[in-house]
């Protein structure tokens, strides 16, 4: 119990502490991909940049627009953080796991489904048309990606025969990484992950150039920052989950003897996916709303369903 | 810039003996001045006639001569993309009114609005709204008697509509 509690503290602290450096890293990576250095002046090579941002945002005036639904407006950003943190609490990092749930994977999906309410409610409560459209898009996007995501996950779950993250890693330690068996599910999951955290090319609810700021158009100060916290925690959590599902989590050489190395492996693998989201952001244009839905429904969903059958065939043939 | 040949001008004159007021040439640019009542027929002819085929209205603007009557002349720059020739048509706006050419060339949609708001020339047969200035702006800035710095006008003229 105590160990679990300590792990919970550790994970929550890690998530909250990791967000500012990740924003810094994102700006650095994006900068270098565009041949510019990114933050440089605040602190050595801009290392204190996130701190300055945070201080500024904390002491910024907090505006609640007239005509807004005050309660929901104030409440919505916390949804995003809480949902993401709850999801984080069941994801193991190496040997550290706060809540060992039997159906951990499903729990993560449930929580990410909840955290989308942050966007929808923010869009509704702001009483701004841009926000409203952003909220609508967020709601539609959920309906778009949840199904293919479910099916993509179903394929690997069939393969592993469990919803428990630890069991999955154990399976992969025995049989090899999941990506070797289910590359299509991996790709699908990547796409859906990007859609779920609302990053380019699926950053439609935000849609900076179309909807000004989308759901967070009317937010300022810490409430705005809360959205960012939620988004980045979601990135971390889902990156951890991808590496658990497909890249063997903490498995790797020497990881059995020294669990701490396993933690590092896991974080490294997740780090790659975090980097991938930055990379995609630097490279790609944004899909249009209806195109995104049609891709989800007309391409991803059939592929995912077929893939489930493939997975079933694999289980049948390989007698796994 | 290639402008229409003298033969074509002759053809114009013979087709519209009453319409053509004068034909001028300056630096190889041909200008035809047309009477107001023939304007629409004349323009339509220029567009559909196979010798002219003026399918593009390049520009539509006006010039203000305060000491003359009628005061404004509206200038149409026409071009044929297939024949590659140009023609400038002028029409004095008697009574500060002219028939609109927006049915012939869509270009006139906005340029006529602009001429209306800048000079106060009304184009008949279409909806006219101010284009660049607020709808409540009371003056016509490009008239010669309007000073560059403008007159004082009430503040609510500029309020966001």
């Amino acid at each position: 119990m105590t160990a679990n509690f300590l792990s919970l503290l550790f994970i929550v602290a890690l998530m909250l502490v990791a967000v500012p450096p990740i924003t810094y890293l994102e700006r650095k990576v994006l900068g270098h991909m565009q041949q510019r250095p990114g933050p440089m002046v605040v602190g050595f090579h801009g290392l204190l940049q996130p701190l300055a941002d945070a201080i500024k945002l904390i002491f910024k005036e907090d505006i609640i627009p007239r005509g807004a639904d005050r309660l929901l407006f104030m409440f919505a950003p916390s949804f995003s953080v809480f949902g993401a943190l709850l999801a984080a609490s069941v994801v193991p990092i190496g040997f550290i796991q706060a809540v060992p749930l039997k159906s951990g994977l499903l729990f993560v999906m449930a929580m990410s489904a909840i955290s989308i309410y942050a966007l929808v409610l923010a869009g509704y409560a702001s009483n701004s048309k841009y926000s409203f459209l952003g909220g609508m898009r967020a709601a539609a996007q959920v309906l778009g990606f949840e199904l293919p995501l479910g099916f993509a996950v179903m394929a690997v779950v069939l393969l592993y025969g469990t919803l428990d993250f630890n069991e999955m890693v154990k399976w992969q330690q025995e049989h090899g990484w999941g990506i070797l068996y289910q590359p299509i599910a991996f790709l699908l999951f990547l796409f859906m992950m990007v859609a779920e955290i609302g990053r380019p090319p699926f950053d439609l609810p935000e849609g900076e150039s179309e909807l000004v700021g989308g759901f967070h158009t009317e937010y300022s100060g810490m409430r705005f920052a809360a959205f960012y916290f939620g988004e980045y925690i979601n990135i971390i959590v889902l990156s951890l989950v991808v590496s658990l599902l497909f890249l063997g989590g903490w498995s790797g050489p020497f990881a059995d003897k020294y669990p701490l190395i396993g933690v590092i492996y896991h974080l490294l693998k997740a780090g790659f996916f975090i980097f991938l989201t930055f990379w995609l952001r630097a490279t790609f244009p944004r899909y249009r709303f209806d195109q995104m839905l049609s891709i989800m429904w007309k391409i991803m969903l059939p592929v995912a369903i077929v893939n489930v059958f493939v997975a079933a065939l694999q289980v049948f043939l390989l007698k796994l | 810039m290639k402008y229409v040949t003298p033969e074509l001008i002759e053809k114009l004159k013979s087709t519209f003996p009453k319409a053509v007021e004068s034909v001028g040439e300056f630096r190889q640019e041909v200008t035809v001045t047309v009477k107001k009542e023939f304007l629409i027929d004349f323009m339509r002819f220029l567009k559909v006639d196979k010798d002219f085929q003026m399918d593009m209205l390049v520009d539509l603007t006006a010039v203000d001569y305060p000491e003359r009557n009628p005061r404004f002349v509206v200038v149409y720059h026409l071009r044929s993309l297939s024949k590659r020739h140009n023609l400038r048509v002028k029409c004095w706006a008697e009574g500060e009114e002219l028939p609109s050419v927006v049915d012939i060339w869509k270009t006139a949609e906005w340029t006529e609005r602009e001429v209306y708001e800048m000079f106060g020339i009304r184009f008949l047969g279409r909806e006219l709204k101010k284009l660049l200035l607020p709808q409540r702006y009371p003056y016509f800035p490009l008239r010669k008697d309007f000073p560059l710095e403008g007159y004082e006008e009430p503040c609510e003229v500029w309020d966001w509509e």
Partner: protein
Amino acid sequence: MNEVFFYFFAVLSLVFGLVAVTSRNIVRGGVALLGCFVSLGAVYFTVGAEFLGIVQVIVYGGAIIVLYLFALMTMDFATLKSEPIKMAIVAVGGALALTTSLLLFVGSSGIAESVKPSISGAEDIAVPMFFKFLLPFEAVSVLLLIATVGAVAIGRRED
């Protein structure tokens, strides 16, 4: 420990449920309903119905309420009249509701055994479901299919 959580979430779900049905603002009502369902999910957790709790959150939170909110957003809030509330109806409704819940409570109490929380994961539920209850399962899936088709048919306007 579990009991404490049970009471906490049970009360929470009741409060949210009450807000959901009495709220004038429908979107707030929807959010309250979401809160109610999530707390019910947590209630299931406290007795070990882990899988069910998660499914409750996914289905209700992730699908049904989103659907409600999405449909609400396509409506123009300005045209939605605020309904006049007649005290007579409230009184009658309240009385009826109270008596019904009392009846239910009285009828179901008196069981001496105690609830034994045991964790039931996906596998535990799947085995009886796909063997013993296969026919109802199929029937329900057909029902869902028909519902989907029907919803599409109604939602489509004759253009």
